[in-house]
């Protein structure tokens, strides 16, 4: 499913003294089936932007097009957009409410008016996506650990099987293993359903690892967008708007500045390792020739 944003703007508390333009004239096309990252410093309007993508907030001006159709056209289109574009909020574990994990995951599919049998299937499927132990399904969600609750909340949205899945800071506050598990679940979901995934994140490391395309927000505006390589190559620009590139990219850039022949598109530790090994082999080779 194709998602397109056209001149989106959003103003909070429009006609009062607390007026605040949170999103300003943002246009973008999200590539179908991609993992798209949205980065930007605190207060740059990321959360506001994603809430317009599934129609929870109506833009002050502009349109959100799903397969070419404006989701704000009428009430029915708007309501159905919520099932096509799944949104997982920041700290979603605080919205669990049912007696058991399974019932909580079933909330979305139930609102979709699926049959009992289908719902049962969806619960198991979603639990598997996020790597949630099936034994936990009958427990109360309030008895789980923070990371487990987070996975239940994400499963609750995945169970609606939205063709576009948006997550606002899905891994914040989790340890590295927890982060990896969450992102692993997202990849599994994308690979099995062909969905588009949009991730809002502060972590350049995570973005470098998982995002294919990246949108950069600054002061309510979309200031940069493109593939991961295109965006992270502009390290100076990212720094100038208060963002950063992954640590290891800094290291590689510094080495390159000192005359080592390294590529300029290394953003992950694994990538750096491979490049350094290649460099080492090259140097070794040369030395061998000299001798």
């Amino acid at each position: 499913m194709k998602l397109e944003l056209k001149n989106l703007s959003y103003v909070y508390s429009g006609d009062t003294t607390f007026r605040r333009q949170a999103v300003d004239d943002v246009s973008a096309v999200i590539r179908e089936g991609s993992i798209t990252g949205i980065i930007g410093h605190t207060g740059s309007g990321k959360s506001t932007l994603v809430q317009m993508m599934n129609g929870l907030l109506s833009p002050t001006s502009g349109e959100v097009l799903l397969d070419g159709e404006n989701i704000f056209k009428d009430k029915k289109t708007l309501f159905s957009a919520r099932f096509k574009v799944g949104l997982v909020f920041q700290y979603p574990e605080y919205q669990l409410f049912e007696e058991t994990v399974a019932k909580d995951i079933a909330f979305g599919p139930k609102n979709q008016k699926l049959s009992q049998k289908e719902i049962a299937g969806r619960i198991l499927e979603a639990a598997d996506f996020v790597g949630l132990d099936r034994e936990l399904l009958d427990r109360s969600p309030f008895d789980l650990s923070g990371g487990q609750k987070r996975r239940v909340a994400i499963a609750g949205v995945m169970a609606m099987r939205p063709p576009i899945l948006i997550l606002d800071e899905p891994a914040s506050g989790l340890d590295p293993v927890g982060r990896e598990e969450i992102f692993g679940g997202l990849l599994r979901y994308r690979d099995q359903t062909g969905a588009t995934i949009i991730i809002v994140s502060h972590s350049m490391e995570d973005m470098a690892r998982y995002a294919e395309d990246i949108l950069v927000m600054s002061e309510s505006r979309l200031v940069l967008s493109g593939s991961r390589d295109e965006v992270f190559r502009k390290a100076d620009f990212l720094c100038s708007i208060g963002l950063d590139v992954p640590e290891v990219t800094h290291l590689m850039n510094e080495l390159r500045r000192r005359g080592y022949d390294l590529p300029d598109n290394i953003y992950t530790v694994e990538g750096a390792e491979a490049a350094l090994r290649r460099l080492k082999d090259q140097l070794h080779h040369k030395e061998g020739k000299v001798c």
Partner: protein
Amino acid sequence: MLKDITLGQYFPGNSPLHKLDPRMKLILALLFIVTVFFADSLVSVAIMALASFIFVPLGRIPLKTVLRSLKAIRWIILFTSVLNLFWVKTGTQLVDFYFIDIYSGGITYAITMALRVTALLVGSTLLLSYTTSPIALTDGLEQMLSPLKKLHVPVHEFAMMMTIALRFIPTLIEETDKIIAAQKARGADFETGSVFSRAKAMIPIFIPLFVSAIRRADELATAMECRCYHGGDGRTRMTSLRYTPRDFVALGLFLLFMAGIIGMRWLPLPAFLGM
């Protein structure tokens, strides 16, 4: 959204009104309300209503905001006025149409009523809610009522409870907004269906809200205990309230004004302006 409900909204600022001691503002607001009820002629009530707008520039509050809060209660004003219009049967009869009788006294009284409610609202909100932070207000209240401690009234505890409640209203409203949005994202429908099904649709909001309110209360209590909070006995404050000359000047001016308004009762006014 829920946030747009402005319950006694505070405008941070540095105006002469902001600088007054909250206790003095409480006293002034009380005196103001008493004066409004003492003012019994159309002229004196009109003066009060006009005078209440003096606080707009004094507190540097946008006039638009004040007018909007008036607009919010326009039906209450209209209703009380219209009720009086038909009720009061003094003066000369102007209309006699079946059961509708309107007397000149009724008209005067209706206008007086409208002005009185306006003066009350504008005066008290400007003195208190717009220019005094809720925390300063409870502080002021606590110190004014502190003599009651001698009678074993837990004044400090009540004030602390009020402070905490006030502090958490915006937080909980924000949280409610978030939870509603999150459940809507999962397709929850709060707008259609019977009363019963709509009430049931509230469960996914209330349960997370209560859970988080209780969690917050628990965390706050722990944090307070970690900082050795143990109630009011022997507690001193970081900023103790102190009256400044400014407060007494304000009080003096106000008492003069009050005397003037009350004095107007004995002025010989034309009948249609009086009551």
